[in-house]
């Protein structure tokens, strides 16, 4: 019942915060969010699962109750964690707490609604990672949209309305496509499948695959479904060329929402890709490996090039997320232990680092009210600690060794270099060029914005950031370094859950 | 010798089309209403003719219901036309266009 407890605390907390007075909402929400954080850390310590949740693994904190009977199919309340989802749940709870604390400064109106929505989003994110029934999962998956829409729309930047609706509609269309594809798959699987429980579907997929449907052969159907689901998730990830909602949403969102958006929401897409496409369709992964790898490489390089062209700090970080997600795709398609494990590791790592970056940029924005590198210079002079953390985060993003980003990227590169698909080394080498580009645009931005003689175009007095803005970043930095020095803190857990995937066709 | 059922149907269809033509071309609300009545009566012709053809009374009974309901409809319709006139000073159905698109 631990997962239920997590969800309940977050949901009830959201309601309580929603009706709490604005004055205390921030502190209250933070206090509430500590409960899931602590619980999830305890779960992390007490984790006793093994194997992959979809592939006959032993689930931790499992619970399953039949919910709705649709005649031929049943829908269950079915949650549980394995080595892939648990780190992501912990990431979610910790990042939420820190995001809440980092909102104390910038959020100055309708606080109770803001923090209520943040807690609500936390609940849904936990649900996405914990749910093992398709419908249940899909509920959480879609329900994330509402709070994020409102967070961007109400507390966002100047183009918030455009960004919010774009995010909302674009990702929803993708979800519909994915939903349709999955339903078709389940129908195609025939009588062998009587529920939407993901393990059951995965099992059926791996033991025979679908019969024909819509006049399509079984294998054709599987391919169609694979492609459709890939496209559906590709928007959420996002993968070039479906990425254009992301810079708008990230840039316009208020800092804490950006933190969650980049930190956790993007991982929903890659997590889903891993759970669905890359777990259930080993044959199709093999067939489509080369195009997918090409997409990954394009995402990496193209995203980095776009970041290079930006002058808005937040936009830079936003586009760099496109690039980083490209690495994840590359790792997934590698279909090796280090590839998929590294991709999962990168999900966590990127969540931490991009969260840190958005917080740091946010702190600078709070002080200067601008994010354009052309508007400022020498911020290190006025806010040394914040800038120090920004620099540290930037180096983390660049994959500086002994920070989690390096571990993740190294695992991915290593996993992809030896992958089984054609030209894997070449694709990997191309994708790796991202580490040069990322250094290019981040260092360039740093040079212009935080170093050099002090200058600020906006009319604000810049002073040191308060402790509650800085503290969350220190926590993140600590975790980033800890994971960089000791990746096995989670990597062992992850690979344990990844291995069963590889037994179904991938090569070790 | 009886008249073939198809002639009844043709008649009723003709009547129906005349009614429809009236509905489409008449702008006076009352003419509109009358045209609809024509269409209803076309149906009645069918019902009665087919009742005869099938040898049961169901159709005829239903025709009675139809007439009754047509009357009720006209009653309501006239009420609406009345308030229409009060508000728009006209019974031209194409005049009220405050709501569109």
């Amino acid at each position, binding site marked *: 019942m631990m997962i239920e407890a997590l969800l309940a605390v977050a949901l009830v907390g959201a309601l309580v915060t929603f009706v709490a007075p604005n004055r205390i909402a921030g502190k209250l929400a933070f206090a509430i969010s500590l409960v899931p954080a602590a619980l999830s850390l305890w779960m992390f310590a007490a984790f006793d699962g093994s194997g992959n949740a979809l592939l006959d693994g032993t689930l931790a904190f499992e619970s399953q109750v039949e*919910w*709705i*009977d*649709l*005649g031929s199919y049943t829908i269950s309340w079915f949650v549980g964690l394995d080595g892939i989802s648990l780190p992501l749940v912990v990431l979610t709870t910790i990042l939420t707490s820190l995001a809440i604390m980092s909102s104390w400064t910038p959020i100055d109106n309708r606080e109770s609604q803001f923090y209520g929505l943040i807690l609500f989003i936390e609940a849904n994110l936990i649900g996405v990672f914990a749910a093992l029934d398709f419908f249940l999962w*899909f509920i959480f998956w*879609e329900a994330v*949209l*509402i709070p994020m829409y*409102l967070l961007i*729309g109400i507390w966002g930047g100047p183009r918030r309305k455009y960004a*919010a*609706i774009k995010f909302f*509609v674009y990702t*929803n*269309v993708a979800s*519909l496509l994915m*939903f*349709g594809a999955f*339903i*078709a798959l389940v129908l195609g699987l025939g009588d062998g499948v009587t529920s939407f429980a993901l393990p059951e579907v995965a099992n059926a997929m791996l033991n025979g695959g679908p019969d024909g*449907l*819509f006049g399509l052969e079984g294998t054709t159907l599987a391919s169609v479904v694979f492609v459709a689901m890939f496209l559906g998730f590709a928007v959420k990830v996002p993968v070039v060329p479906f990425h254009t909602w992301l810079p708008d949403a990230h840039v316009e969102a208020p800092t804490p929402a950006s933190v969650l958006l980049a930190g956790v929401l993007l991982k929903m897409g890659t997590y889903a890709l891993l759970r669905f496409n890359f777990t259930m369709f080993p044959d199709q992964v093999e067939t489509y490996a080369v195009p997918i790898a090409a997409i990954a490489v394009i995402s990496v390089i193209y995203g980095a090039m776009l970041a290079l062209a930006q002058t808005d700090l937040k936009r830079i970080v936003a586009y760099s997320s496109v690039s980083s997600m490209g690495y994840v795709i590359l790792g997934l398609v590698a279909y090796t232990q280090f590839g998929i494990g590294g991709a999962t590791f990168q999900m966590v790592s990127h969540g931490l680092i991009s969260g840190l970056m958005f917080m740091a940029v946010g702190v600078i924005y709070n002080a200067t009210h601008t994010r354009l590198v052309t508007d400022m210079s020498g911020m290190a002079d006025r806010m040394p600690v914040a800038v120090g953390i920004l620099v540290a985060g930037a180096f983390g993003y660049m994959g500086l060794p002994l920070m989690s980003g390096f571990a993740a990227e190294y695992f991915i590169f290593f996993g992809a270099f030896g992958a089984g698909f054609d030209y894997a080394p070449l694709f990997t080498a191309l994708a790796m060029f991202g580490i040069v580009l990322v250094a290019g645009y981040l260092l360039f931005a740093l040079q212009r914005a935080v170093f050099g003689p002090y200058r600020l175009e906006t009319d604000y007095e810049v002073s040191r950031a308060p402790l509650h803005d800085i503290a969350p970043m220190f926590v993140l930095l600590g975790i980033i370094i800890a994971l960089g020095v000791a990746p096995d803190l989670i990597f062992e857990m992850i690979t344990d859950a990844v291995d069963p995937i590889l037994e179904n066709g991938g090569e070790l | 010798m009886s008249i073939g059922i198809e002639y009844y*149907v043709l008649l*009723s269809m003709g009547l*129906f089309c005349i009614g429809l033509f009236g509905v489409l071309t008449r702008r006076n609300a009352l003419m*509109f*209403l009358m045209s*609809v009545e024509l*269409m*209803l009566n076309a*149906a009645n012709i*069918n*019902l009665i003719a*087919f*009742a005869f*053809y*099938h040898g*049961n009374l*169901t159709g005829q009974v*239903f025709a009675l*219901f*139809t007439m009754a*309901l047509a009357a009720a*409809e006209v009653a*309501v*319709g006239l*009420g*609406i*036309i009345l*308030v*229409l006139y*009060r*508000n*728009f000073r006209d019974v031209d*159905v194409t005049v*009220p266009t*405050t*709501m*569109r698109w």
Partner: protein
Amino acid sequence: MAVFELPGWTALAPALILAVTGLVLFVFDSISPNSTNRSLLAGTAAGGALVSLAVAVWFTFAGVGTPTVDGGLGEISILGGQLVVDQLALYFMIVVAIVTALITVASYDYLVDHTYQAEYYSLIILAATGMSLMAAANSLVTIFIALELASLPSYALVAILKDNRGSVEAGLKYFLIGALSSAIFVYGISLVYGATGHLQLENIAAVISGGDVDGYGGLLGLGILMLIGGFAFKTASVPFHFWAPEAYEGAPAPVSAFLSSASKAAGFVIAFRVFTTAFPLGETTALIGVEWTHAFIILAIVTMTVGNFAAATQDNVKRMLAYSSIGHAGYALIGLAGLTADGGEFVMGAAMMHLLVYGFMNTGAFLFVGLAERWEVGRTFEDYNGLSTQAPVACAAMAVFLFSLAGIPPFGGFFSKFFLFMGAIEASAETTAMLAVAAALVVNSALSLYYYSRLVKALWIEEPSTTRDRLAQPTGLYAAIIVAAVMTVVILPGFGPVVDTALEAATAIVG
């Protein structure tokens, strides 16, 4: 169970209770036409609706209408099969009663300072009676009568604001299109009668199954198509939808809510019943050469497309909801389009679920518009800007309705819409054309998200464009809205029983 000993006609109790309530109000109106005792009138009406609801729910759980093989009490035929009370009937009686109860409670505030109060309530309840009867009607005769019983008061209700040009214009258009549609419908009935010689649904089916209508296939086909026209009018489906935008926009908001939720549901129940009972797909196809589901496939696609596209750029909130209501008719039509010769209960059940959820969320949305009319803030999106700062609870409820209409969890609309989507895909396995319906659903869903969230944006994101006085909090409207909102939310976790009921009802009638 005690019910068993009651005479058969008592199975109609939900409708009868409404009828009695309507007559009581009618009598009251005759005695005291100018009474402004709002509490008494609204209370009576709401009470009647609630009792009807309670009885219908009780019947459902007691097993009335449930086939005996499933341990129920069996379907109950009344008047020689002219009316039948089965699970389907009870289900829709519940929907109608819910909507009626909600809007009568809401009308308590909406009708303040309004003359002809009693007339209003009696018309509402009479129309509700008609709709309730439509759920049970089992012969083209009773269907037509019940349909007119529902329609005639509706015309009057739409035009009840006699000095309001919008209301009158709406009434006129509704009436004229309604008259034309019922003429077509009756003509259709006459053709079907001509082809089969029967009006009772089972008898028609028997004739069709016997293949006795050779040579009249075209006639039967035309008749069926005309019947579809009649249903399309009632459910506001394209091309019989033209009345809907104006009627919903011009009518008093509770009436709009009533028509778009209950009336639509009633239209669907007769469609469900007629097409599953009277025209078994396989046999009918053998006669008319084409599956009538194709008509519904076309109608579903066109209806959802027209409704959603036209809604997308509306400025007037009520009109947007009106078009969205057309769009939802298109969604529900999937329930008919997805039927197959040997099944389809799931997709039809999904449509039924959707209509139930729709009863809450759409009614709630229109009632919120009613609240806004009461506040006199204006009618356009812009006029609604920033209302959440002054009325957060109502606006939160409205956000719930809108997101639910858009099919976003964690609200009820999510499940029903996605079950429809799922049903459409399931049906595609038999009828590939249903894939087009599924695709259209995706496109329209996206578009609907756009315009629903536009309203959410106006309420929650935009700054107020003008300064407003303090907004009143009328009890009845608020109560109705909040109840609807709460139901929209809690129906998601509690969807199990809804699914069971709807699927059983659908299975019984399809199978």
